[in-house]
Every structure is written in C-alpha cells, then in structure tokens.
C-alpha cells in the first residue's frame, strides 16, 4: 500500500494510487447479474480527467464545497476523486433523505457543486422548496438520453448531464494540507439543528492507516460495497482504503439479497462491510439451507462446525475452515476473509454463528464524529460480546464509571472531527478538553485485554439495526400540527435507561388539551403521520402525559428535565404500540 505518512491530502494519495497500479482493476459495477462497468486505475484516471478540467473551468476552487447524492456506483467515486483533485471539500449526503432534507443540508453546507442521480434530482425539482436550491452547478447521472442542460420544458432544470460536463486537456492538481477540511459529513439534524462533522485530510489519512494496519488490502482484494458510500464506513473501507492499496471495489446497483449472495460468488469477494440487518439476513438464509438438509447431512455439518469451532478458538484459520466446510465457504465465493460489521448493535449470537463457520465477523464501533471507527475486533482472539479494541492511534476512556465500571465512552485521536460546521455551541458540548464525548455507555471488559463493551446510550437517539442514527428532534416535524396541547419525541431508553442495546424505539409523548380525550381520531392521526416517515424513522409507540412540559424562557421544551419527569412518573409498559 501507499505510505500514507508521505501524503498531505486524500487527493494527493488517491492521485498517486492511480499512477501506482495502472493495470489493476479498481472498480466493477454490476446491475443484478449484468456487469456494467469494469475500470482499471488507469481507466479511472481517464474518466476523472475531463471532469476535473470542467470543474477548473467552472472556477471550482480550493476549499469550495461539493455534495454527492447518489447510490453506490463508479460515478460516485470518480466524482469524489475529481472534487479532491481540485482541492474541494466533499459533502456526502444520504440518498435516502427526502428532497426537502437534501435541500436543507445543501443550503447548510453551502455546497456550490452537486452531483446527483436522476431519480433524486427529479424529486428535488418537484419539491416546493426547489427554489431554495443553492448549488450553482448540478450534474445529473443516469439522466435519460434526450434530456440536457437548458433543453426546454422537459430539460434537467438547469442541471448538466454528467456525461456532458467535461473538457479536454490536463487539469492542474490542487494541493491541500493535512489540517484542511476534506469532508463535511452530516450525522443528524435534518429536522432540527444540522450536525455537520468537519473532518480533515489528517483525520482520514490517520484513520485509514490504522484500519489497514489491522485489515490490510492489497492488489487482488475485492471489496463488496453495499453500505451507502455516503456512510462513514463505506467511504473509508469501500473507497479510500482499497484505493490506497491497489485493491478493487465492487458496486451493486441492487441490494436484493439474492443478487448480493450471487455477487460474493461471481466476484470472489474478499471483504464486505455490513450492518447487522444484512448480516442477520445472511444468517437467516444459511440457517434455512441447513434446515433443508437431510438428517444425516445435518448431523455431519454440526460435527464439522463443532470441529472448526474448536480449532479456531484462539485465532481464525481461514484456509483450514474452507477445507472443513467447503460448501458454506463456496456459497460466499471461497475467498471471503471477513464480514466486517458496524453501524449498530449486533447480536453476539449472529457474530458467533459466522465465526463458528470459519467466517470471522469482526464487530466495530464508531461514529461519524470520529471519522469511521474507534474500536474494532482484531480477532486475537475473536470476541462476539465486545466491539473490539481501540484502533492504533485512538485513546478511549470511560468517564465517571458506576459500580459496574460503566460510564460514558470518550475518544481522543487525530481521526476525531475538528468541529461541527457553524455550531460552536454543540462543538463545545461534544469535544471537551480534546476528548470526544460519544454519548454511548460502555466499559472495558474485565479480561484486561482492552476490549470495549457497550451498554446503552446517554444521548437521546436510537440506532436501527440498519445502521441509521435517528434523532427525535429530526422526526418531530412529522407531528407538527398534531391536535394536542404539546408533544415531544424521545428514545425509550433515554426515558427509562437500561444497560442494554438493541430493540430501540422512539416514543411520542403527548400532552392533551384540558378536557380533551385520547380518542380514535387522534390515534388514527398519529398512525397516519407516522407512516409518512420512512420506515426506519417511525415512532414505535405513544404515551399520554398528564402534566405540562417544562419550558425555557424562550419556550423551548426542556427535554432533559421532561425525560427525567416521565422516567420517574410513568412506566415503559404504559407506551401504547403504534
């Protein structure tokens, strides 16, 4: 791999990677079982060059911000590289947000330039908020042939087709320094106060060096990219990491489980990062296959799994496991070395299930504010009940531990963000004396080997098993105008703290008007509004509260105080499922 210590920016490192491995395949893009794109590092450079030149001509300058809103595909990485090449700051936005949310974050980030997929652009142009679009240059990918910039009523509303935005000639690389901003990544705030994590080139280069020290890539490695590339994990291990090591990234245009399973075999995948929901899906599929086996074969399989388990207790022995359980490993292509799991709480039994089959599923813990990962299982030995050890260069402390040693996890490392964009107040609350306060509760395991275990959250938010962080403030907008005196949304575990993770839900707390009854009409209204939210954002239940909410002099709800009142005055069992 490249020696990252020698580079001042992501752009410089990526540029050298394209020179270093010209003939290695760096990207494969498939739609279902149809391969659409296969690029070498040299091809990648050729595709980025005209875009970089066009950006130069459009006076895109060092420090200018550029957003990407796209599903995983080769153009995502080519666009990101071109932005870095021109000295820009990348703003990767979640493509699953609504058009109004996209417009809000585009405005907050002050992105001058936007690359967006056609179906998402169409939603933005049809939004009542479209006039608020602040980006000056918009490139649309996948736009139907015939639609182009300024082509009349059915045009791209002032945007350019990605394919048309190009210029001839050699672009000039724009150098950046380590302390310059590389990315602004939003960890929350679509409904309230946007939290744009400002991450420097130093953060990414340091984090990449730490991760690849434990999980190296090399030419020939194939990484299956199925988490969204705008997510911190995939951006690092599905783009930066593989590229600075000469490895290959495989993109799928569909996340249908059967095509994902097929891709493991077709492309002989080496690594993949997953959220728990996908891992669980793979487990379900395998267990169903095992259940179909005839009793004798099933008995044999159980014995072999038991033997593998015994032989890999101290460390993974992938080659041996492949020989012991060839059918299982063939189903994953035969080259798989690890299923890296992160983004949310993972059931230890699922992690153990895969490890026992000889497929290590190391679990990690991270947050956008800390670039990508804080801890990761190093498999020395594998532990299903922890989120691993702090990565090289990361210091982790447990603040104010209780009698069980559990307290708030704090992190200090060069990978930690420098601040929240335009929000010194939230920054000051989150980074205190150089330590990032994560809001997560944990402790170091008593075995003394430095494994971190997580036990819940101090902060008012939930993480779904699909890896989505949901902040109550962001979804309250869906209940604006609800015919009650007042309402507030909380994470159930914030109201009734418990030292566990998983099965997290949001609760809508409503205070009725005097003499108002909680009738079916109100219930139906709550259900209807809840369904307007994306499935992973919905509240799980509601609770009627019989006191006025405490408020500040500026009439904001004192959430902490209200949560304490509810926690003490109502039982979790009183939450009515929606």
């Amino acid at each position, binding site marked *: 791999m490249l020696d990252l210590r020698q580079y001042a920016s992501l752009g410089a490192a990526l540029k050298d990677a394209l020179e270093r491995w010209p003939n290695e395949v760096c990207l494969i893009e498939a739609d279902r079982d149809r391969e659409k794109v296969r690029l070498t590092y040299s091809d990648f450079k050729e595709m980025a060059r005209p875009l970089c030149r066009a950006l130069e001509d459009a006076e895109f300058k060092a420090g200018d911000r550029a957003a990407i809103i796209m*599903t995983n595909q080769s153009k995502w990485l080519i666009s990101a590289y071109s932005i870095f090449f021109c000295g820009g700051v990348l703003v990767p936005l979640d493509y699953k947000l609504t058009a109004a949310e996209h417009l809000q974050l585009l405005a907050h980030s002050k992105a001058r330039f936007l690359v967006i997929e056609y*179906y998402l652009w169409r939603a933005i142009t049809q939004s009542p908020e479209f006039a608020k679009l602040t980006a000056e240059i918009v490139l649309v990918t996948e736009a139907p042939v015939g639609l182009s910039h300024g082509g009349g009523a059915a045009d791209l509303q002032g945007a350019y087709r990605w394919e048309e935005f190009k210029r001839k000639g050699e672009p000039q690389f724009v150098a950046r320094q380590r302390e310059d901003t590389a990315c602004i990544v939003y960890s929350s705030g679509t409904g309230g106060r946007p939290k744009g994590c400002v991450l420097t080139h130093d953060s990414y280069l340091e984090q990449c060096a730490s991760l690849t020290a434990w999980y190296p890539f090399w030419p020939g490695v194939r990484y299956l990219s199925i988490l969204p590339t705008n997510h911190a994990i995939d951006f690092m291990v599905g783009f930066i990491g593989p590229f600075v090591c000469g490895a290959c990234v495989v993109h799928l*245009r*569909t*996340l249908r489980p059967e095509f994902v399973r097929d891709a493991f075999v077709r492309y002989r995948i080496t690594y993949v990062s997953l959220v728990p929901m996908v891992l669980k*899906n793979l487990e379900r599929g395998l267990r169903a296959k095992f259940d179909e086996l005839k009793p004798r074969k099933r008995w044999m399989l159980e014995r072999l799994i038991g033997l593998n388990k015994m032989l890999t207790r101290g460390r993974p022995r992938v080659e041996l496991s492949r020989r012991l359980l060839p059918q299982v490993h063939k189903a994953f292509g035969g080259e798989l070395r690890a299923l890296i799991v992160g983004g949310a709480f993972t059931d230890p039994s699922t992690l153990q299930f895969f490890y026992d089959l000889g497929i290590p599923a190391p679990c990690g813990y991270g947050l956008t504010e800390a670039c990508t990962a804080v801890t990761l299982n190093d498999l020395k030995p594998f532990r299903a009940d922890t989120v691993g050890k702090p990565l090289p260069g990361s210091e982790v402390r447990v603040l104010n531990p209780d009698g069980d040693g559990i307290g708030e996890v704090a992190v200090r490392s060069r990978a930690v963000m420098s601040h929240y964009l335009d929000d010194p107040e939230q920054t000051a609350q989150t980074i205190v004396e150089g330590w990032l306060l994560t809001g997560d509760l944990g402790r170091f395991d008593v075995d003394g080997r430095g494994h971190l275990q997580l036990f819940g959250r101090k902060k008012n938010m939930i993480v779904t098993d*699909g890896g989505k962080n949901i902040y109550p403030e962001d979804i309250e907008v869906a209940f604006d105008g609800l015919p009650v005196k007042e309402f507030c949304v909380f994470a159930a575990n914030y109201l009734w703290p418990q030292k566990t993770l998983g099965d997290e839900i949001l609760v809508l707390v409503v205070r009725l008007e005097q003499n108002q009854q909680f009738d079916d009409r109100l219930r139906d209204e709550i259900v209807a509004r809840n369904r307007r939210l994306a*499935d992973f954002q919905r509240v799980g239940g509601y609770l009627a509260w019989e006191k006025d909410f405490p408020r500040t002099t500026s009439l904001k709800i004192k959430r902490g105080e209200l949560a304490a009142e509810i926690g003490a005055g109502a039982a979790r069992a009183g939450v009515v499922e929606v």
Partner: protein
Amino acid sequence: MPPTTNHTLDEILNLAALHFKVPRERLTPDDDFFKTLGIDSLQALDLLTRLESHFRIELPDYELQGVSDFRTLASRIQARL
C-alpha cells in the same frame, strides 16, 4: 389486456401471504407491510423479487423507497405492466 390495479393488488396480497406464511385474510391493501408482515427492508426486497418474477417486470430498488403499503406497491408495479 393488462390486468387492472385491483387485480394486481389482489395478486400481490396473495403472493405476500404465501411468501411470508400469513393468512391471506389478515392482509388489507392499506396495511403497512413492514408491520403486518413483521419484516425488515431486506425482506421487503425479497418480496419484490418474487413479485418481479410473477409479473415479469424489473423494478429498480429505488421504486420501493418510501413505499410501505400494498396499494402504493401495486400502483408502482401496475405502471410497469
């Protein structure tokens, strides 16, 4: 002649009941299928695959984004028949 939306909807409900092993009479067009079937978004994609092969169409994943009831799903499928 292409089937009507109601016919399409009916077939979707039948297939969903069969695929996820729930009694057909428990499913109604405006149900939130994540909730009624107790499934996550990946299992919903699985259902989509069954529907594609039944109706002989191809639906990109994004067509399902934001869709959570059978009626809307039927209209998306109907548009491609």
